């Protein structure tokens, strides 16, 4: 299961089929795999289920909605309560053209971690007594009420790291670990966009954030300028 190194994001994402579920790392601008998203946009694959922290105006992921590649989104931020110009996703959502599962951010992170760690479910106090509890099992432990939340996995994870070595070991910069580090464990095929690829041994073992065994494909790309609107 050696990692495959690519120089072209289009080649790296060419295995993605229609009807796939895909996790996207990143939190707004931090650690967003923008080159991979653009390559998927160009590939034209459709009926995709996206899992990402945020999809909004200015997010590259919204381009996938513009081109009608998306059937469902699982996210923590997707619809704004404030007015103003709507994202493509929002427009399609309000017309009932795409599905949405809105998840509290901590629960989203924990579900992905559970999916990667063989945990069959977990109890969280988050969401008790809210719309998020609908349809979920409520459990009482030591007098406290919890929701049973289930793991999340996907066919693919698109993630962004700062550096990779040639065995696929990854190091993140700043606040870009966010969902990238978790999603790397929770998909059947993990594709990482990185700014630099270095020789094995040049990353210190105690510095490695994602061990290479989790990563299937690595592609070196110059970062895309991104700002949130």
């Amino acid at each position, binding site marked *: 299961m050696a990692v495959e190194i690519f120089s072209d994001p289009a080649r790296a994402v060419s295995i993605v089929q229609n009807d796939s579920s895909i996790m996207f790392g990143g939190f707004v601008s931090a650690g967003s795999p923008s080159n991979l998203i653009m390559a998927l946009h160009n590939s034209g694959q459709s009926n995709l289920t996206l899992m990402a922290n945020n999809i909004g105006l200015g997010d590259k992921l919204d381009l996938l909605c513009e081109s009608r590649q998306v059937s469902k989104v699982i996210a923590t931020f997707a619809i*704004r309560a404030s007015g103003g110009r709507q994202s493509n996703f929002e427009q399609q959502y309000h017309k009932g053209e795409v599905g949405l599962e809105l998840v509290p951010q901590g629960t989203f992170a924990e579900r992905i971690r559970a999916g990667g760690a063989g945990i069959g479910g977990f109890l969280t106090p988050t969401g008790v007594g809210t719309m998020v509890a609908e349809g979920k099992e409520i459990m009482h432990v030591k007098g406290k009420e919890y929701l049973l939340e289930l793991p999340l996995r996907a066919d693919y994870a698109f993630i962004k790291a700062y550096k990779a070595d040639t065995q696929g070991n990854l190091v993140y910069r700043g606040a870009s670990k*966010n969902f990238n580090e978790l999603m790397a464990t929770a998909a059947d095929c993990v594709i990482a966009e990185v700014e630099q690829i270095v020789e094995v041994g040049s990353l210190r073992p105690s510095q490695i954030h994602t061990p290479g065994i989790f990563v299937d494909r690595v592609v070196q790309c110059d970062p895309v300028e991104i700002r949130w609107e």
Partner: protein
Amino acid sequence: MADGLSRELIALRASRELSDGMIVNLGIGLPTLVSNFIDGLDITLQSENGILGYGNILEDDFEPDFINAGGQPVEILPGASFFNSAESFGMIRGGHIDVAILGGLQVSSIGDLANWYVPERGGGSIGGAMDLAVGAKKLIITMAHITKDGAPRIMNECSYPLTAEKCVDLIVTDLAVIQCQDQQLTLVETAPGISVDEIINLTAAELIIDSNVKEMSL
């Protein structure tokens, strides 16, 4: 009736709840302004996207990987650390955050919070709000006391979908500071020029008037 506090003054009043050694999470919007008023305090700011120990919002330089949960570039202070979102919410849900200051849409008489969904607009997103409301040791809500249409936001029961039940400890509005303890609301401070009766009239929940109720010192 006099004007209520500006957003900046609401943030200033909220900042008075913070003291040395606290670990604090500031929500997006008005709560972010609180960071303008903590100079000189030894406070560690946590941002749920995976930073502990950030400082000022940076206006000029934009480094995409060094942002807070609002997407704003922030200064990274000595002693800061970075972590993933599961670790970040482990900190939050696990009771390691002393104070969270969030914006609010409605607060009920027993401290229920609604702050993520506006039914009239059919929109809203959850983000980290539900976890922060449940996990922070103390939850302070900053908001306008009434809606633009003049309807109270503090009410017997929230009409908007909840963020969390019985989670609010303190409400700081443009008109008042209201404690929420043991599922009761107590008016403890009034904004300059605002009377207790005005506040009672603009609040749709039973309000105990603290025997020491006083005007805010800003």
